[in-house]
């Protein structure tokens, strides 16, 4: 594999992780527009632990995911008091605040950026992504995923059916943030450089769009969305400006033509549907 292809695969892996981080809370009906903030927490935590505390790469990245999860868990309780559009905007504001804090944090280089000494190769990034993807796929076959879908469809009914709605919501939010933190940690240690400006509004926006385009009803949706929009512009060999313009145009057209995303529940495999019908 050429270096170019490897580099592309790493970008794809990081985008898939980001997409999962958005997908998990979204499957419970929470649109997280501040996912880049959690990526920043993971990236800076992993970088700092590796640089200053001498932690190994694995421990540092895991701690990055953990740190993002901790932040998410701490803010989840107040933030999940808001619903719908207010939640989306609260996460948006949170993402902005987190990025702005890192932009002013002197111990990690503030606006100048923060070089990272620990390094991981592309194989580690890809393997971690595969692991996370397997975990999310596994999770999608459990009761947990069913409960999240129920909450997304109607939180009141889910509550009446005895589901611990609040706890499930916090769990989905925290898990999503943990994955975002993990992807941030991988990013920091693979590229050996973190800069707060990278984790801006637009990163959150693009990540959310991957998921919405791929489809939010199936766990394959985020993978497809991220893959589609990492690889298609490469194939078109477009310049950076045109790449995003084409991406945006496709977003608009797809949303008008196929509002539920590329991959919807209707595309489920035929034998799965038959099995569902046979059960009384």
């Amino acid at each position: 594999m050429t270096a170019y292809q490897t580099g592309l695969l790493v970008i794809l892996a990081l985008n898939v992780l980001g997409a999962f981080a958005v997908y998990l809370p979204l499957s419970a009906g929470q649109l997280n527009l501040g996912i880049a903030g959690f990526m920043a927490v993971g990236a800076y935590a992993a970088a700092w632990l590796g640089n200053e505390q001498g932690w190994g790469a694995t421990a540092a990245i895991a701690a990055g995911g953990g740190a993002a999860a901790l932040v998410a868990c701490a803010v989840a309780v107040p933030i999940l008091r808001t619903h719908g559009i207010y939640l989306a905007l609260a996460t948006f504001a949170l993402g902005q605040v987190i990025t702005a804090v890192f932009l002013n944090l002197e111990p990690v280089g503030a606006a100048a950026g923060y070089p990272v000494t620990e390094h991981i190769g592309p194989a580690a990034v890809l393997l971690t992504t595969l692991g996370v993807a397997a975990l999310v796929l596994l999770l999608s076959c459990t009761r947990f995923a069913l409960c999240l879908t129920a909450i997304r469809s109607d939180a009141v009914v889910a509550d009446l059916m005895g589901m611990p709605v609040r706890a499930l919501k916090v769990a989905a939010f925290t898990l999503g943030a943990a994955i975002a933190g993990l992807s941030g940690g991988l990013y920091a240690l693979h590229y050996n450089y973190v800069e707060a400006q990278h984790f801006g509004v637009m990163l959150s926006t693009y990540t959310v769009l991957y998921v919405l385009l791929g489809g939010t009803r199936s766990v394959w949706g985020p993978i497809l969305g991220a893959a589609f929009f990492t690889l298609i512009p490469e194939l078109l060999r477009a310049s950076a400006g045109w790449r995003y313009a084409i991406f945006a145009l496709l977003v608009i057209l797809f949303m008008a033509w196929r509002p539920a995303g590329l991959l919807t529940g209707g595309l489920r495999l035929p034998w799965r549907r038959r099995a569902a019908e046979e059960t009384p």
Partner: protein
Amino acid sequence: MIAQQLVNGVMLGAIYMLVAVAFTLAIGILNFLNFSIPGLFMVGGMVTWALLAQGWHWSIAVGAALLAAAFVALLVERLSYRPSRDADPEVPLASALGFLILLENLFVIRYGSDQLSFPALLPDFNWRLGGLVIGGAQLVSLAVAVALVLWLSVLLRRTNTGRRIRAVAESRETAVILGVDVGRLVPQVFVSSAVFTAAGGVLFALNYLQVSATMGEGVGFKGVAAMIIGGMGSIWGAILGGLLIGLAEVLTIGFLGADLVDIAVYGLLLALLILRPEGLLGRPAAREKL
């Protein structure tokens, strides 16, 4: 110099106010969080700049910029709002974000992403009042912003169009039954929302004498913050929120440093969303999209 800071804050707040009013129109009447508005703001500033650079008279340049923004807003209505009215709530939001990205990148491709200097249209004129210095551009912006908002509130309160708009905001179905031509009214709302935003963009360019393809992001997102702080769907709330954000920003720069602006503004927004999600002047939301 706290009085001077307050004056500057109000002037900056006037621009946020226009953007916040545009957001609040879309969400209050159509229940649509129109994230293409920062793009329209940029279109207002950039098209004016481009036509001025071609040597056009300023009135034609500004008029063309407003028309361009109105045209884009009609496209947004046709391609984002209309097809996804019955879809999942996050779909129109994603589509509007698509428009924002598209507009920004089309302008980056054409004009680059650097700051471009905007010619000073107004003679360099400062009005001194005691120790206060008020720039001519600031004064013009404030006057235009206040006039636009007053016009809107009279329109909503006194005219037939205003009555129709308020009926749709109250209940779309009932308005349709009562004979309101929603298919014609909605594009009108989009156009007026676009005119407000683009006017904000032109005024921003007049005040700061520079434009760029990404000028909409910072101001536009602070306009969202202003709208929420005032209360979604409330015009007076948007005005209050815009002024508050402008003041908060200028005072933060004055006393804490420019680096902390985003922390202050978005921290304020976050705290308010958690403590009082309906905003300062808003009523608790009974229905919401997304």
